[in-house]
């Protein structure tokens, strides 16, 4: 079978998707969140599987995990990772705060578009 003959399984349903909130942005947000929640659950299952397989091979991962205390270097590394993670996830607030700090207004943006078209 060549590439062009590959058939594709439909992924969306025909028929207008209703909006439930006054602002459709909230519908999109909710849908993305539900999909993300699914994937978090799938990850937890996967970790559980790792523990279960390790246990079958005599490595009591789940029990060791419970009593594991990271050494100071590792604890620091985790702290950095956590902070970076939060910065990434909450990037939108940083963006907005820096916008305000720089006085990056919508008007200033319009002006930039105008200036670049005229110069």
């Amino acid at each position, binding site marked *: 079978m060549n590439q062009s003959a590959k058939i594709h399984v439909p992924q969306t349903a025909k028929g207008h998707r209703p909006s439930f909130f006054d602002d459709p942005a909230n519908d999109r947000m909710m849908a993305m969140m539900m999909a993300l929640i*699914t994937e978090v659950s799938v990850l937890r299952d996967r970790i559980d599987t790792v523990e279960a397989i390790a246990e079958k091979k005599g490595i009591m991962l789940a029990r060791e995990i419970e009593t594991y205390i990271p050494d100071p270097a590792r604890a620091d590394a985790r702290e950095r990772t956590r902070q970076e993670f939060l910065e990434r996830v909450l990037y939108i607030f940083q963006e907005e705060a820096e916008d305000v700090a720089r006085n990056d207004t919508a008007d200033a943006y319009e002006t930039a578009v105008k200036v670049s078209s005229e110069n």
Partner: protein
Amino acid sequence: MLVPPPLAPHGITPEWSHDDRSRQSFQRTLRETVIRKLSAGSRVVFEKRVKPKFEKEHGRSFKDRHEARKEMRKDTFYQAHLSIQRSAQELMWASVTYALERQISDLVTRAKETKAKLGTLTLDPNLQIPRYIDSLDIHCMPGGYTTDLGDGDVAAGAIYEQGSYIYGSGRGGAYGDRLGQSIARHLKRVYPDFKPTRILDMGCATGNNTVPLADAFPDAEVHGIDLGAALLRYAHVRAESMGKKVHFSQQNAEKTNFADESFDLVISNILFHETSRTALPRILAETRRLLKPGGLMVHLEVDQFASLDLWRQIVFDAETYNNNEPFWSTYRDMDLEKVAESAGWPKGSVKLDSEPMEHMPVTSQSPAQLKSAVPGFLLITGRK
């Protein structure tokens, strides 16, 4: 056991990865817990917030479910509930379709390699698909019942069987055949001497509910018809691999190519509510044409509005408007005995009956909760 067993494997069962299984389990859990809790919450919101507010403002109660539904739709709790429920429906299908995309070619190959020894498969590429089936994808199943990707495609069958299993939280049992089993049980109980020699299942989809009739009446010739080619290819391979003899053909239940008086028994499972106002009486008339004198029809369907309180009417109406079930509400409002009469069944010859469902004890819910979670089913029966 909190978790239902998976569907029993057969010759065309797709392969699910570890994460596919997790996604599908999660969608099942989401449906069984969150959606049910949100629904219970919405009921409280309706009774304690929306209804009193409306009554205070208008000095009267709701005149009908339509007025009540419109008021409910303004409530932010209910909006969030409906939004999550819609996403849950979409993600349920997605937990199946994304996994099928990577293996569809293998499934098609497996289907082609299956040699039929028992039953037959007859497809009609020129069959006209009615608008009530292909104007939108019913219950948001991607591709709907009749998408045929060509080249021996079986995707719709794989999507439908696994999606139904997740949707019903495994209550259909290892073979997803609870409805067909209930019809067989009803027949044995009410007509113990009935021995059909030819049986037709209209709108058989993947044949899960056709097979129990073949099991219950091993001497009968069993036929299943449906509009979807990919469903039927899947149904055929499934039945063959299970050693079940069923003849599948692609036909419209409104007008089949079987001769008059071809069958002793004509059945269907949750077919009517996915048809239309004009198609439904045609299907009842076709049922009568196909039955031999003395033959029986048993169409299994969801309950109608008359048996539901206002809140449950709103819940079911939501299916019509938010879950691609265009005919669902109209069907529930129809007078089925009158419709049957208009379709040639003499007055009084059609009965609306019920058959208790055998619930599969698969969830953590109490039996009472389980019972209330499963909608009632209706049997539309008649003897020619």
